């Protein structure tokens, strides 16, 4: 199918590539390499107190009593806050689910019960950081431990229930049935079934932990949060009603943020606690989260089980569809969930042209840290499933993994391609990307390398990961979970102005954490206004007071190159038109004769004096405007809100255009496994990216490197493991091993550009990477282990001990899979 019945607004790519497409030096770098970045913890206020949280050592317990007397008695302690106060002073956070999830009561501090290890039960504020911790140790909490649920498969049985108000551990459940699964089964030559696959729990663990400095202004009731929240628009939607205040009373200020990856989106419980403390104690309060806290009690990625996977396939390898039960584990509170129960549907079909997909999806709470969107959010889990399906089916039917993929990929000539659930893949050429990746890792010599490795006691394997990085969410998909929700579409704002001395000043609604927004925004503005990016001053970070934010402002969901830059382009276009109008009036020339170039507004091919520097334009409007006609009121100050067009979703069929763009990432790698120990080493790695028009190729490549490193960590080392009592066993960087410099191989990258027909610049959001590395490492491990009894890789994390177990007992993994004639 190559046409679509959705109306799609396309904007022509009208810009000449000037600065766009060039890897200019990043504007952010100069301050950051000098240690002059301003991260939230670098901000000081007179008289500020330091906050330390008292956290639950138990995963599930009743809070019998909390005694803060000893803490308050300590010299230098400013005050405390407990769950009882929170329950009186705030309302529970808004829940997005339908019942039972809708009935969950989530407060800033634990009220009555703790539901995960590390959950904050009280907060202490003191004169120094050390004193705050001393005092927190003096808070006496009596707990009555309850049965602990750490396994979603057990939680779904509801023998123990976390949230009495909900009466069930199920947050949300529903069936997605697209195409005709029964017909696909009938058409198939074989049905391959996989009993269970497990996508594990990890997170991107940004190097800067969470935190904020919160000030309260008594006179206005205004809170200012110097923070590192990277989706403040949505943060305010949670916080303001809970604090029983208006959204305008919450000012979020971010400057530099030390990485986010989605993990700083669900900070609202902590921030509400800080707001209450700042108000109660009438002083600014700083909270700095420590690493162990972040691991135990901030944001994990969604853990997901896939059960009873059935795949309909023809003997020639043509995939017709699949049917699966997905069980998602969101930890103790839904917070951003149950959005993860639908976000995956943006890539329901993965890179493949199967037309029949049936997913029975359930999400449950468990006594583990709550989840939050994590790089590749929800799509990565599902794409891992599709890639596992392709590799497992391919291996069982003795089909070549490259052929398998090429046969089933959506073809470039089918673009734009409408998926069975109404999503539209805008552009791309998956097969070409795969060829480039295979070429980069020397695929044609792989058999020789396998033989050579065998001689060294190593098992060598090659793997492929095909992923889509879907970007620019349509929030209307939330209505597929809960039709009552009043969210749809998407938006982002920016302002561009020309100031009195000719300064071009840009403010963004986005909240960058390393993606170089100051730089890429300046490239776009420079090309539109005909000047150098050096002349464009992009204000650092986000500030609610910039008046350049919209409801969905933030940096998430691979969208800046579309929404953020779309807004910047819109505002710059408005400014440009006005500058031309003004220059035409001053130079007494028709507007068509004016060009903006080299920092001047001038008459094309005119004499040198027929040129106005930008400074002159700025000065005229702002300080010397008496001669302008009465009916001519230029402002040289423009705000634009970019809004992609999606149309409405179909809540009955659960279909719609759930996202705007699809960047492609095809990864391929070669691994060697030490047969004796199970130690896995990545010996070759290639990532090929297609995100349409690249504004700044170096930044794009940097995102590819970063996403790959995250995937390597997740595939081999990073795992939030809980014991049966709900104790997190990997709470620090000793046990939660993130890749070090020596762990990451030299990465080879390739790129093609398939411009998006749907976006202002032909660009697509990218950076999340869809977990391509996880899929391809799993794929390579399975390939490498093939001579050792053909075990099936069933888990997304394969640390040495798991690989060794597969080597010892391949059969137990094989019993998970069966092939039957249809």
């Amino acid at each position, binding site marked *: 199918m190559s046409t679509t019945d959705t109306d799609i607004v396309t904007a022509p790519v009208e810009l000449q590539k000037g600065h766009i497409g060039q890897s200019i030096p990043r504007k952010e770098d100069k301050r950051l390499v000098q240690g002059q970045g301003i991260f939230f913890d670098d901000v000081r206020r007179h008289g500020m107190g330091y906050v330390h949280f008292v956290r639950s050592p138990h995963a599930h317990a009743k809070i019998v009593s909390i005694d803060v007397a000893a803490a308050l008695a300590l010299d230098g302690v400013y005050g405390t806050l407990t769950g009882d106060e929170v329950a009186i002073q705030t309302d529970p956070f808004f829940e997005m689910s339908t019942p039972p999830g809708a009935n969950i009561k989530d407060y800033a501090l634990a009220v009555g019960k703790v539901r995960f290890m590390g959950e904050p039960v009280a907060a202490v504020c003191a004169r120094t950081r050390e004193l*705050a911790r001393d005092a927190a140790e003096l808070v006496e909490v009596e707990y009555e431990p309850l049965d602990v649920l750490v396994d979603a498969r057990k939680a779904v049985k509801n023998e123990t229930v976390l949230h009495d108000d909900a009466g069930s551990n199920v947050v949300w459940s529903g069936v997605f049935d697209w195409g005709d699964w029964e017909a696909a089964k009938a058409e198939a030559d074989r049905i391959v079934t996989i009993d269970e696959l497990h996508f594990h729990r990890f997170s991107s663990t940004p190097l800067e932990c969470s935190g904020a400095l919160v000030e309260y202004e008594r006179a206005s009731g205004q809170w200012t949060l110097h923070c590192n929240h990277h989706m403040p628009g949505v943060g305010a939607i949670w916080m303001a009603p809970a604090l029983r205040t208006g959204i305008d009373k919450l000012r979020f200020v971010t400057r530099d943020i030390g990485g986010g990856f989605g993990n700083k989106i669900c900070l609202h419980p902590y921030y509400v606690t800080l707001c209450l403390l700042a108000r109660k104690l009438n002083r600014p309060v700083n909270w700095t989260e420590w690493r162990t806290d972040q691991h135990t009690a901030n944001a994990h990625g969604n853990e997901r089980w896939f059960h009873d996977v059935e795949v309909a396939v023809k003997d020639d390898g043509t995939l017709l569809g699949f049917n699966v039960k997905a069980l998602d584990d969101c930890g103790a509170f839904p917070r951003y969930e149950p959005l993860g129960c639908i976000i995956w549907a943006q890539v329901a079909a993965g890179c493949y042209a199967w037309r029949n997909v049936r997913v029975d999806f359930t999400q449950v709470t468990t006594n583990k840290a709550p989840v939050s969107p994590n790089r590749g959010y929800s799509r990565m889990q599902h794409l891992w499933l599709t890639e596992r399906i392709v590799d497992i089916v391919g291996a069982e039917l003795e089909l070549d993994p490259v052929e398998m993929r090429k046969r089933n990929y959506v073809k470039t000539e089918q673009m734009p391609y409408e998926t069975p659930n109404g999503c539209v893949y805008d552009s791309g050429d998956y097969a070409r990307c795969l060829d480039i990746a295979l070429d980069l890792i020397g695929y044609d010599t792989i058999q020789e390398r396998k033989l050579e490795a065998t001689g060294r006691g190593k098992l060598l394997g090659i793997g492929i990961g095909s992923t889509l990085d879907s970007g620019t969410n349509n929030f209307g998909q939330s209505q597929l979970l809960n039709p009552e929700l009043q969210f749809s579409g998407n938006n982002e704002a920016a302002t561009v102005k020309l100031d009195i001395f000719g300064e071009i000043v840009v403010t963004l609604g986005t909240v960058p954490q390393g993606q170089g927004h100051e730089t890429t925004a300046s490239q776009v503005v420079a090309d539109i206004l005909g000047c150098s990016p050096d002349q464009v001053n992009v204000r650092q970070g986000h500030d609610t007071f910039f008046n350049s934010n919209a409801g969905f402002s933030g940096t998430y969901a691979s969208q800046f190159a579309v929404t953020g830059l779309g807004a910047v382009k819109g505002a710059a276009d408005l400014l440009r038109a006005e500058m031309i109008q003004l220059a035409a009036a001053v130079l007494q020339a028709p507007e068509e004769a004016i060009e903006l170039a080299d920092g001047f507004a001038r008459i094309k091919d005119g004499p040198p004096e027929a040129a106005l520097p930008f400074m002159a334009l700025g000065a005229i409007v702002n300080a010397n405007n008496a001669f302008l006609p009465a009916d001519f009121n230029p402002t040289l100050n423009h705000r634009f809100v970019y809004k992609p067009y999606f149309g409405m979703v179909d809540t009955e069929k659960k279909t719609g255009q759930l996202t705007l763009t699809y960047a492609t990432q095809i990864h391929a790698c070669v691994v060697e496994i030490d047969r004796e120990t199970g130690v896995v080493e990545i010996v070759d790695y290639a990532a090929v990216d297609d995100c349409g028009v690249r504004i700044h190729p170096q930044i794009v490549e940097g995102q590819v490197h970063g996403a790959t490193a995250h995937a390597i960590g997740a595939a081999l080392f990073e795992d939030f493991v809980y014991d049966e009592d709900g104790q997190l066993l990997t709470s620090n960087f*000793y046990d939660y*091993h993130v890749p070090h410099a020596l762990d990451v191989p030299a990465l080879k990258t390739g790129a093609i550009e398939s411009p998006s027909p749907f976006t202002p610049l032909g660009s697509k959001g990218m950076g999340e990477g869809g977990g391509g590395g996880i899929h391809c490492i799993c794929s390579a491990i399975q390939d490498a282990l093939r001579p050792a009894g053909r075990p099936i890789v069933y888990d997304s994390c394969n640390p040495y001990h798991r690989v060794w177990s597969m080597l010892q007992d391949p059969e137990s993994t094989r019993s998970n899979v069966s092939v039957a004639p249809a």
Partner: protein
Amino acid sequence: MLLREVEYARPSSVDEAVRLLASHEGARALAGGQTLVNVMKARAASPDVLVDLSRLEGLRSITVSGDTLHLGAMATYTQIMASSEVEVSRPILAEVAAQIADVQVRNRGTIGGNICSNDPTNHLPPLLVALGASMTIRGAEGERTVSAEEFFLGVYLTAVGEGELLLSVSVPAAAKAADGFASITIGRDGTCIASAAASLARGAPRIALGCVDAVPVLVTPAGADEAAIREAVAGAGLEPPSDVHAAAEYRRHLATVCAVRAVQQAAERGR
């Protein structure tokens, strides 16, 4: 990150250090601090008094006398890696020191701190047991020497008693010694899951296994062939701890693999 209150003193002589350690209950020696400060940050263990050894320059020396290499307790890993004395008299020490943690930690961390903390994942305790090292300890009653085999008593527990101070580690010098070391770490340089040090310097292999018990486990196979090593490790009746990285069975298996590899390396070096 935030430590409990603690008292601090920085003596300028060994005598003074020993006096401070002996006269204050809960006093602990602070060497490089790469373990101790970390543990204090977690508030897991809290000394009442820290006796900073940084001014005791004499404890930093690395010397050779006769056929013995003496490493002062305050010698850092970086110093050991760069030491010509180590290079000519027992190079395996430098090689293993280079595998400890990272550059910054190697710049601060000391041999004394490493073995006195005796974290089971540390590399030096098994190495020193395999090499037949001995430790010189100073207490109120004077100095005494303890063999490496008797030095390690438990996790964070050694023969250095309350009020005592480790002065130096002595290792038999043997320039082309047949020594080997093998380990399995998470990633290239992460936490150690299993390790083995081996020395054939005195004929029959001496293998010390790390990470499988509270203290290094010494294994002395009858010969250096693989079968003998496997038999000897199997005979050691290892009951290693299980954790998130390795169940007991896997760790036991890795101990054997490391032992074989360490001996192989030692044999190659000795040729």
